[in-house]
């Protein structure tokens, strides 16, 4: 076995290693130098397309057909997209392996799931006019540079909203880079543009000149976490500046005459410069090392390193993780190195093994930890095993040690080794795997149709396998040549008891494949109405969609279907559909009430809901601003009911006719009494009130208050207002108009429909005790005590006394005397004296 340090390179005081991942990656005929190569993050797929700017050998008509080819890192062709849709200006990957293709006219095509179809959108903001120059991509979005130096950003692909950033100067852009929103200080995307000799930082609100003079900068590169920026100057120097622009960290002179074709960060510690077949790796403090290749090399940056791709090999360049350095560094005497040594000695059955262990005994548990971590970072299976064995040996010596990490690494390594296998071609590093998460890894595998491996990994890591099954079923539906019944039963059988599988997606796939019947069948197994309905609508199964929507209880969904139906169906059939479904009818009514009264009218008419129809007309009558149309509408409302015989309709008609009559009378009052309104009324407020729109009672009240008793009486007769109600109205009107004289007149009449108590109360609360007192003697229905109370309230204690005297109630009398003051006391004393046995 070769030594683990064989592929290490020392850059300054740090080690870098170049792991050979795969060999014989591409066909030797493929002229990689003529292609643009972009790699998906986390060791994902690689997309290549021919660079149209470069001359190439003519190979006959067939070869000139351009295409975008997607390969795995091991060079396995995953997909070929034939391209005839214009000049590709940029190609990029999103975090979840969506391929983004941007053409010169500003059209963006987003290819899903490696194998899937694309979703297009356009950048707008003048992109079609000025043309897209280039694009820079980050995890969830990208920024496009237009011909007029405008920058357009798209922050997500599910709902792309291209936004214009602030405008930089229009001088030609030498090079540019972006800081992704996750790592920028402002939490939104920032663009660094090299224009002239200086740099501009552009975000949504402004373009700021950073006042550099050392330019023009040929290359700009931002480290994966945005903490450092690297610039390549015209005179062959590489500058590294901290991400907040506060400090220039190092400067390296490459002494190269030609500008490198690419500059990328390798992790966050080193910058790689690439010429055609030469790569310089520049570490901190400007030390560098050089690698030479015999073919054209491409740099594919990743979060913790750099993939190097040539026709022959795919290599991974990364800083050697600290744990690995600790274990393997030549002459390392760290506990971990000793532990590894001890373990190999143990294999050789040497007694020295125990000596070594005893030597590192105090720091054994750290040594075990280090070995475990180093194993995780190791690509070579031999050394993985050796390290794990060492850890296991050390573990057995320790009394107390939690094996969780050990088990975890074992699991992870098993998965990593499986996916690194060349047929799969996902050479994830340990850190990438941790960042990517196992769920996403499984998603990547299913996208590559590696269902078996995905299932195995899912069950090995105890993850849900529902997605995999769903994906499998979709694929099955697409490509299977079996009859629809067979497919359906097969899928249903396979997916039985897996509640997380989305049947909707499978059904959609079936529908898109033209298997409508299969789609409907499959859709029945989908429990989520929100998923069923849109597809059903798309499949023109309108009534089923409506029923499913109603079942779900989600009004939004029901409205959605209803809106769709309303647009599609003629009115009569629309009504027919909703009539049998009360919830749908209720919702149509509710929304129509606000928006579409005519629809509602038709609905009521068609449904023979006379009362509701009449009410609707009545509402319209109310909303008229002038009287004449109001009256017309009222007439219509009444007419609407003329054929109905049932009690409520008859009542309604009566009420409507009364309303008309009242309005007409109010109109005449308004006209007749208008002049009187101009004279200042003694009572404030009376002048402002008009009659129209008042209720009947309020009209009578207003008339009485203004002294138009005859008219009020007429109204009473016309509308059969009860005497009681009328008397109340008159009382209140008189009190409020303070017509005391008239009240006094009333007190002389014999009878009142409501008794006399209200008269007393109203006068009293108006503060007129003397008028209130007028009514006390008339309240014959009340008890003596109550009448005494009334007198007392009026302050007429003597009268109260007399009342008590009449009832010969001595106790009451004395109670009254207690309240009295002044001359009333004497008078009351006298009254008490008049009672038998009063004077003792």
């Amino acid at each position, binding site marked *: 076995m070769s030594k683990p340090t064989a592929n290490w390179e020392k850059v300054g005081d740090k080690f870098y290693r170049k792991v050979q991942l795969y060999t014989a990656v591409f066909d030797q005929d493929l002229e990689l130098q003529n292609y643009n190569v972009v790699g998906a993050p986390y060791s994902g797929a690689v997309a290549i397309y021919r660079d149209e700017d470069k001359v190439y050998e003519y190979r006959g008509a067939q070869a000139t057909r351009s295409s975008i080819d997607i390969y795995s890192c091991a060079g396995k062709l995953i997909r070929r997209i034939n391209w005839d849709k214009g000049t590709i200006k940029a190609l990029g990957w999103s975090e979840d392996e969506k391929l983004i293709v941007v053409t010169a006219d500003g059209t963006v095509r987003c290819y899903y799931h490696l194998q899937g179809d694309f979703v297009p959108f356009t950048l707008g903001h003048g992109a079609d006019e000025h043309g897209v120059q280039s694009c820079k991509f980050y995890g969830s979005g990208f920024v496009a540079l237009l011909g007029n130096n405008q920058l357009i950003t798209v922050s997500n692909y599910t*709902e792309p*909203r291209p936004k214009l950033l602030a405008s930089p100067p229009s001088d030609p852009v030498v090079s540019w880079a972006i800081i992704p929103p996750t790592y920028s200080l402002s*939490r939104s995307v920032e663009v660094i543009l090299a224009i002239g000799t200086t740099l501009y930082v552009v975000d*949504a609100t402004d373009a700021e000149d950073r006042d550099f003079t050392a330019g023009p900068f040929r290359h700009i590169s931002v480290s994966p976490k945005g903490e450092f920026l690297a610039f390549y100057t015209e005179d062959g120097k590489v500058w590294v500046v901290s991400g907040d622009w506060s400090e220039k960290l190092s400067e390296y002179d490459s002494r190269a005459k030609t500008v490198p074709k690419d500059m990328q960060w390798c992790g966050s510690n080193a910058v790689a410069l690439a010429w055609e077949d030469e790569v310089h790796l520049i570490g901190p403090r400007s030390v560098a090392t050089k690698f030479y290749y015999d073919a054209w090399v491409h740099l594919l940056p990743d979060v913790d390193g750099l993939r190097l791709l040539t026709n022959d090999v795919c290599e991974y360049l990364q800083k050697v993780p600290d744990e690995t350095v600790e274990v393997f560094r030549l002459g390392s005497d760290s506990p971990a190195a000793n532990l590894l040594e001890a373990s190999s000695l143990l294999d050789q059955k040497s007694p020295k093994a125990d000596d070594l262990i005893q030597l590192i005994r105090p720091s054994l548990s750290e040594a075990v930890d280090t070995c475990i971590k180093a194993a995780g970072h190791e690509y070579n299976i031999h050394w993985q095993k050796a390290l794990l064995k060492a850890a296991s040996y050390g573990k057995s010596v320790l009394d107390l040690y939690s094996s969780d990490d050990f088990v975890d690494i074992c699991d992870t390594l098993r998965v990593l080794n499986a996916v690194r296998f060349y047929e799969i071609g996902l050479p994830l590093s340990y850190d990438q795997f941790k960042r990517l998460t196992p*769920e996403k890894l499984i998603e990547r595998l299913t996208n590559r149709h590696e269902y078996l491996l995905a299932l195995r990994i899912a069950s090995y890591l105890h*993850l*849900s396998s529902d*997605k995999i099954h769903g994906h499998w079923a979709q694929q099955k539906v697409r490509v299977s040549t079996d009859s629809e019944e067979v497919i359906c039963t097969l899928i249903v059988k396979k997916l039985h008891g897996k*509640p*997380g*599988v*989305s049947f909707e997606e499978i059904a959609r796939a079936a529908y898109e494949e033209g298997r409508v019947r299969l789609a409907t069948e499959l859709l029945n197994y989908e*429990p*989520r*109405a*929100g998923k069923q309905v849109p597809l059903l609508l798309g499949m023109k199964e309108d009534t089923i969609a409506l029923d499913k929507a109603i*079942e*779900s*209880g989600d*009004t*939004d969904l029901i*409205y*959605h279907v209803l*809106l769709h139906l309303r647009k599609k169906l003629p009115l009569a059939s629309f009504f027919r559909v909703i009539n049998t479904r*009360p*919830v749908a009818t*209720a919702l149509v009514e*509710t*929304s129509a009430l606000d*928006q579409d009264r005519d629809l509602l009218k038709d609905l009521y008419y068609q449904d023979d809901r006379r*009362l509701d129809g009449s*009410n609707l007309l*009545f*509402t319209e*009558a*109310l*909303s008229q601003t002038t*009287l004449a149309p*109001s009256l017309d509408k009222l007439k219509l409302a009444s007419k609407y009911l003329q054929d109905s015989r*049932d*009690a*409520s309709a008859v*009542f*309604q008609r009566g*009420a*409507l006719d*009364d*309303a008309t009559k*009242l309005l007409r009378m109010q109109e005449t009052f308004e006209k007749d009494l208008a002049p009187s309104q101009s004279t200042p009324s003694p009572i404030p407020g009376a002048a402002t009130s*008009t009659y*129209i*729109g*008042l*209720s*009947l*009672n*309020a009209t009578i009240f207003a008339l009485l208050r203004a002294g138009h008793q005859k008219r009020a009486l007429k109204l009473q007769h016309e509308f059969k207002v009860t005497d*009681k*109600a009328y008397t109340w109205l008159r009382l*209140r009107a008189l009190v409020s108009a303070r017509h005391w004289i008239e009240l006094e007149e009333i007190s002389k009449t014999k009878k009142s429909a409501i008794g006399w108590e209200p008269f007393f109360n109203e006068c009293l609360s108006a503060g007129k005790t003397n008028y209130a007192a007028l009514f006390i003697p008339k309240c014959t229905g009340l008890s003596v005590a109550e009448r005494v109370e009334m007198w007392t309230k009026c302050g007429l204690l003597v009268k109260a006394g007399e009342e008590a005297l009449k009832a010969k109630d001595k106790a009451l009398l004395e109670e009254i005397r207690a309240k009295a003051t002044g001359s009333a006391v004497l008078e009351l004393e006298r009254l008490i004296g008049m009672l038998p046995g009063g004077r003792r």
Partner: protein
Amino acid sequence: MAPITPFNASDVAEKARRDLLLLLEGIRGKKNLVLEKALAGSLNLLVKFSTLQEYGVDKPFFLENDNVDSSQRNVVFLVRGEKATTVQAVADQIKRIRRDSSIEHEFSIFWVPRRTMVSDQLLESAGVLGEASVSEWPLFFIPLADDVLSLELDDTVKDMYLRKDPTSIYLSAKALMLQQQKYGLFPRIIGKGDNAKRLADLLIRMRTEVTAGESTNSLSPSFLGLVPSSTVDSLIIIDREVDFPTALLTQLTYEGLIDEVFSIKANQTEVDSSVVGGATPQPGQTGSASTSMKRKVLIDSKDSLYTTLGDSNFAIVGNLLNKAARRLQSSTERNQLAAKTTAELREFVAKLPGYQAEQASLKQHTSLAEEIIKHTRTDIFTRSLEVQQNIMSGADPITQHDTITELISRDIPLPTILRLLCLESTTNAGIRPKDLETFKRAIIQAYGPQHLLTLSSLEKMNLLQVRGGSALGATPAARPGSVSNYTPLRKSLKLWDDEVNEADPNDISYVFSGYAPLSVRIIQSIIQKQTLANLIKPLSNPQASAQANPLAQGLRIFDDASKYVRGATFDETQTGEEKAVKARSMLNGSHNDAGKTVVVFFLGGVTRAEISALRFVGRKLRDVGGEGRGSKIVICSTGIVRGEGLVGAAIETQRFGA
């Protein structure tokens, strides 16, 4: 590890707050905030305006006023997206700003609580969908107190009972579902009412829907599909329709009366500043400075004085206030005298702010109480209360007609009259056709012809009915279960309590000074069977074990009563996967039965009096060792209602010539 408490008010509030601030943070720079009036109260409860300002909110606007200006580049709309009209208003305003403004704007819309397809469709057809970035603020429950969570859906009554629009039911189900996802399935869902049944069905249905959608984010462990919750005992759903009368009655607790007299909105009430002096600023009082003479007063459940006052019958509030005043005075005075050593003095000084706050609150509540007394002394109040009490105690409603007619003639506020009429109708299975017609005519004459629509709406809501059949004549005889029959209920649930004790209550009847709310009685018949059984049918020999009342077995009272109450009855148990349940019972044993939470959900709103009554029940349950096993009650609802709101949903506001 602290025990998980489901339906924890502060958790709910914190989550909602965080969600909103995160959304606001996502928009760079200063922004103008346009919000729906109905959301203002809720927002105020969750986030202080100063916090919003820290997050870049420059000026708030109301959507209804349509006055957002172009002073900021960013315009944020915070609105409910369920109603087409609101969506349209948003679209119109975006268009207006875009047309009028000279600078380019960034629009963001936060739909509450979810983004709807209809809103997308409307925005699209208005041509603004592409202009605005759309996200949702999943705001469901808003805690009004530690044990009260409300959805604050103002239109529920109108939607559900008048328009038969089930949106509120769906939103309620969503809200409850979120809680289930967090704390596990409700082991049992029991309840009464047609809409409540629909809600329960939806919950069960959503369970399968959610498990289906779950695997996508299996990162968050969820108990769904696995096990019923170990911390929640059951969910009791009561449909407001089951018990309209309770909502129609005048509430007689202190909090209830504040609501009746001044109206409480999102824990705030507006009182004329002449009542509670305008000078002292209230802690936590936010919102617009009072331009008018109205002042906002916070009804704070954390105020120690108010906690004792709020749930008490108003009759004893005066005494309580006196007591508090005396205690406060004596404690401050004595301390001053006794403060001899510096240590004591320091302690006293440290307490001073507390005393001052208490003093302020005491002053405020005294003046509020005085104002309420003024109101309760009026002739109209006593007369209508008299009618209510007579109807509820089972007197022949015909005897009350004269009073009602008189009140109509005296032109008292229409809601009060409608409450009385609806009360009569709902407790007596309708009003005799002749009487109803008379009343209708009287109302139209007294309050105007437009109330023909009001009355028709009330009939649609089943608040006003003709006895022996619907007014439409469609159903000739009342279907069984379509009306509540109070005559047997009065006895079997002891709805009327003649020996009510307001000062030291021994039964929930204290909240209405005699009437025990039917809704709470139904809940009692599920969770407090023993007490209720003993109340209904006191045992002959009190020596016998308290647990032995035969009535208390099973669900006898509940079953008996629900026969006479309108609406569907349901009782579902939710079990999880067998394996998981077994595994848990092995782990826990069966001792972990105490201290569970009972969730009571009022669909269509809860009144403050009912909250008080339930708190009373809850206090009894919390005594560990009793039948409640120390469980606690959490009250959830679509909103807080009061009688005026209930009939107000039907009242037509337009009038002729206006």
